[in-house]
């Protein structure tokens, strides 16, 4: 199993979720994060003083998938999250050693 960790633009969440459910991936976990990268932050000016906001709001999606679904999932997610603008984000893949559904105790692919 693999854990896909995707950093995306907040407003692409619905598109990403729909795309994933479209290919039968029905579980995911979302975290509000702030990112720093090539897309620079912005400046806010209050009463003539400049405040540098370096970190930009992003969402992190974590999706555990069976090995067989990995490529499909990455592909789908990448397409759904893309706007073509700088700051679209990243998709990272980690190896997932175990997975367990708390409610039932199921493990492995069946837990996803």
């Amino acid at each position, binding site marked *: 199993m693999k854990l896909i960790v995707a950093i995306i633009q907040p407003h692409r969440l619905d598109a990403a979720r729909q795309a994933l459910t479209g290919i039968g991936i029905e579980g995911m976990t979302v975290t509000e994060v702030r990112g720093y990268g090539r897309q620079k932050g912005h400046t*806010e*000016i*209050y*009463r*003539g*003083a400049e*405040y540098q*906001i370096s970190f930009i709001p992003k969402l992190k999606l974590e999706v555990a998938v069976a090995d067989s679904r990995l490529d499909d999932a990455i592909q789908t997610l990448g397409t759904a999250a893309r706007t073509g603008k700088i700051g679209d984000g990243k998709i990272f893949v980690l190896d997932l050693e175990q997975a367990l559904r708390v409610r039932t105790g199921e493990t492995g692919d069946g837990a996803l």
Partner: protein
Amino acid sequence: MINSGDTAWIITATGLVLLMTLPALALFYGGLVQAKNILSVLAHCFAVACVCSVLWFLCGYSLAFSGSSAWLGDTANLLLASVTRGGVRAGTKIPESVYLMFQMTFAVITPALIIGAYVERIKFGAVLLISGLWLLLVYVPVAHWVWGGGWLATRGVMDYAGGIVVHVTAGVSALVVAAILGCRHEFPHGIRPPHAPWMVMVGASLLWVGWFGFNAGSALSAGGDAGMALLATHLSAATATLVWMAIEWIKFGKPSLVGAVTGTIAGLASITPASGFVGPEAAVLLGALSGVVCFLGVLLVKRVMQVDDALDVLGVHGVGGALGSLLLPFLTLLGGGVALSRGISEQFMVQALAVGATAVWSAVATALITKIAAATVGLRVNREDETIGLDFAAHGESGYHHTAR
């Protein structure tokens, strides 16, 4: 004889001016600081209001508004001993109890204005000590000089609702406290933006409404004078807001909400001394000027002087109050203005004297007070507490516990 209409209005105005401190100013200032210091700012406002109320009862009112010596009132009204249930304040048609309460709300908000200078790094004990001493050593004497029959009153100074007594004293003192206290350790480059601009706007809105009580209440009656003060106050605020917005729009490309409401406060502070003496055209003019001048005032303190007067008390209040106090004689010439009892330039000299003397006295006394606080309770929290935030460090609380669970 007590007039019930006048009394009705001044009781209401008293409520409005209390509202200006609690919660209006608290929200205005609280939204401008970081989330980790929000409660401390609210606590400052709340505690200053309480300390100054009790001091006003003990001796403040007596020393400001009893007797007729040049420098300070007398002790006839310590513990409000001469205030009777039916007693009328001389020169008005309202009960003395109402008059002293109305004045008390001014004595509360003036030291509370200074809070903006020292937020995010001061010890809570120092807030209490400085505010208490400041009330007695700066506010009370100056109020006596200008409104209590003191030497500036004798010279004919005009200060309708406190451009000098409130805004110049607070603004100058704020700078002095900030300078002695030193900058927040992140100043100027690592300072975080206002954590809740919406809160700043709510505070400003309530300040605006409350200011009707402040300025129109200073008529001490419900009639044409109060009405004109109301009108002038509102127009100055509205105009200054638009001017500040225009400046930001031109200069930074976007008009900000925090900027707009800062303009409002600038317009309100500026019209305060003039409100009961001028008509609507003058109010619009002064409002427009105050937008420009206070904008520059803020930049001056922040960029040129590099003093961390964190929430711009001098730039907005001090500069605005002085501006209105100095221009007042000229502004009476426009429609709806009162007739001056002397020549304009003569009146201007009196106004300048009053602004200058008040500024000097405020600076000297505040420096002394701050040094006393430094030597006794201490001024600043340590670096770690500043990093953690005063909410937890000084009050053991957290402003926001929104987390699920």
